[in-house]
């Protein structure tokens, strides 16, 4: 054991003994080196302070290990029941899921697989291995859909989900889903899209093992209601809205706004829109005052709106569309009770006869963006 030196050995401390100046010097020197358990302070010992025996307990939440810690062989960081490793600052995570090799399920459209295969839907890999190729190079790999006239659902493998952490229902939320794609051919027109249609891109959850009804989902439901638009219509003056209500505001001159959705986050007075169409702040999280309502932009709603067909085609260049979720509502994925799917509603060429008029699109990948990860418990 390491101790500070005694000033004198035992056995000399008789009552007649009077400590000398040397003794007081040693005590003063020693006390100047010891750790003050009352006042605290900072020390920098030249060798580690090693505590064996009964060990040390940190009973204050203010304890910090700013220099890091290291276990030696057999040493363990042992977590008691309900104790977890948390992050001082919320973390984020992005995962890319290639759609190469993904087979759309038939949950949304029971006959979509038949259409998919009969129409020659194929995987597509890059040159020089053109076995799967249906579109010519230089297009890269992905899921090629053509002549698929109905929405498809793509189950998300668990490797691409970030399971909700143990801290709370906001621990590790899905903030956005981005679909990367190329339109391979300029359509003559476009149909099956709009405010009342199934969005081009959607994400939703369904009951997993806990669902005992054995009834397959009949349609796209919303991921914990965040995408549920209570109203999707033309903006009108002096219209009533309530706190928390979602809205996709468009006017005859602002169709581009139809790809964005907003939520009432503040309401004063009767909760009516203003008298003129406001200038909308389309930055996610940005606010817009409209009459006595305050709208907060949630972000993209998955609807595909382009001002022109040329813009839709974009000469076959890579494109992305992002669907933002309302993270003011808990959107952490509960993979114990649900499974999750991405829905794609392939747009149709209105100038061609259905059902073989799907605009040829090569879907490359889906990227998932998780935010507010609070603990090391929710990963997959």
């Amino acid at each position, binding site marked *: 054991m390491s101790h500070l030196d005694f000033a004198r050995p035992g056995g000399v401390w008789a009552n007649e003994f009077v400590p000398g100046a040397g003794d007081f010097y040693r*005590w003063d020197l020693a006390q100047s080196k010891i750790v003050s358990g009352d006042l605290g302070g900072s020390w920098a010992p030249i060798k580690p302070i090693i505590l064996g025996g009964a060990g040390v307990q940190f009973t204050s939440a203010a304890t910090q290990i700013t220099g890091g*810690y290291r276990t030696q062989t*057999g040493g363990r960081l*042992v977590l008691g029941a309900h104790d977890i490793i948390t992050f001082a600052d919320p973390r984020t995570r992005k995962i890319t899921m290639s759609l190469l090799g993904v087979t759309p399920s038939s949950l949304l459209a029971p006959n979509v697989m038949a259409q998919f295969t009969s129409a020659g839907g194929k995987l597509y890999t890059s040159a020089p291995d053109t076995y799967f190729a249906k579109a010519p190079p230089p297009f890269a790999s992905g899921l090629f859909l053509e002549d698929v006239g109905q929405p498809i659902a793509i189950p998300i493998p668990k*490797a691409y989900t970030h399971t909700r952490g143990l801290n709370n229902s906001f621990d590790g939320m899905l903030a956005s889903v981005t679909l990367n794609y190329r339109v391979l051919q300029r359509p003559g027109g476009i149909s099956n899209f709009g405010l009342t249609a199934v969005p081009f891109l959607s994400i939703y959850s369904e009951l997993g093992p806990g669902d005992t009804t054995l009834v397959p989902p009949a349609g796209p439901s919303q991921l914990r209601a965040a995408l549920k638009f209570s109203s999707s219509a033309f903006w009108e003056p002096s219209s009533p809205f309530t706190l928390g209500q979602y809205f996709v505001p468009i006017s005859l001159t602002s169709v581009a706004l139809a790809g964005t959705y907003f939520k009432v986050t503040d309401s004063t007075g009767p909760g009516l829109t203003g008298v003129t169409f406001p200038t909308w702040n389309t930055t996610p999280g940005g606010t817009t005052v409209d009459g006595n309502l305050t709208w907060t932009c949630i972000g993209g709603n998955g609807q595909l709106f382009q001002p022109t067909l040329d813009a839709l085609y974009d000469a076959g260049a890579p494109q992305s569309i992002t669907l933002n979720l309302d993270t003011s509502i808990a959107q952490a994925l509960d993979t114990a009770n649900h499974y999750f799917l991405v829905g794609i509603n392939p747009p149709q060429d209105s100038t061609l006869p259905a059902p073989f008029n799907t605009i040829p699109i090569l879907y490359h990948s889906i990227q998932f963006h998780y935010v507010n990860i609070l603990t090391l418990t929710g990963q997959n």
Partner: protein
Amino acid sequence: MPNPRMNAQESFYVNGVPIPASYFQTLDARQSQAFNADAGGTWNPIGQVAIAGAGLWLCGPSTTAPGAGIKTLPGSGKRGVHAAADVPLFVPGHDLRFHILDTACNAGGAQTSPGQCSVTAGLPISGAVVMSGDGGRLLVPLDVHNGATFALAALTMRAATHVGIPGTTPSMRVYAVDAFGDVIPLGGVPGTSGFVSLPTPLSVSGYSATTLTLLYPINAGVVIDRLFFSYFAEIVDESGNNATVGNQYQFVRSTFNAITGLYFP
């Protein structure tokens, strides 16, 4: 508060009253027991040293002894809180720096080229993907470990009963695919599509009805990055003379190393 007791009450200290030697002996003993914050050292207290109040900051590199460790109190609800980007790290040689993941060839998302997969319930390998012997393709999305170095992929298959060695043996390549579909082979001959073939067996008995392993070394320095990439194995069935229906493709074993810590995998 269980800090060192005073030698005597305040009333003990009276001017003109001699202080006994026992007082100084106790004083001397207690100072010798204190932690030396300048020189450091080793102590084995018989009771736990409990530090509450403003807590303790361990500002230097701190180490637990072999077999010892840090333990949160059961049910205390206390947290090990890690600052930005901090995670528990693994020293070289740690068991968790090495990870093997098997992906079944009929895993979710796996797909064969149309018409070239007969069944997906082979015998004796239940659940294997059974190919038709005409060069059909099988695409397998691989389970990977983010941040790890991808060292080796190995395909396990069982060849059908053959009367001769096929003209072209099965082959495989492993590649990364970025968000916009570009394919990057991770092994094989540089500048090619990256396929590696099963070595031609010396005799038909070394191939027919035999479980075989196709090793696919990954290029040096390939670190898994799931932020931007997905990973696949693409398998091409045998073809040519003596090729036959019934090769069973079971799984791809991926070996990862240089895992540095408890990052999101």
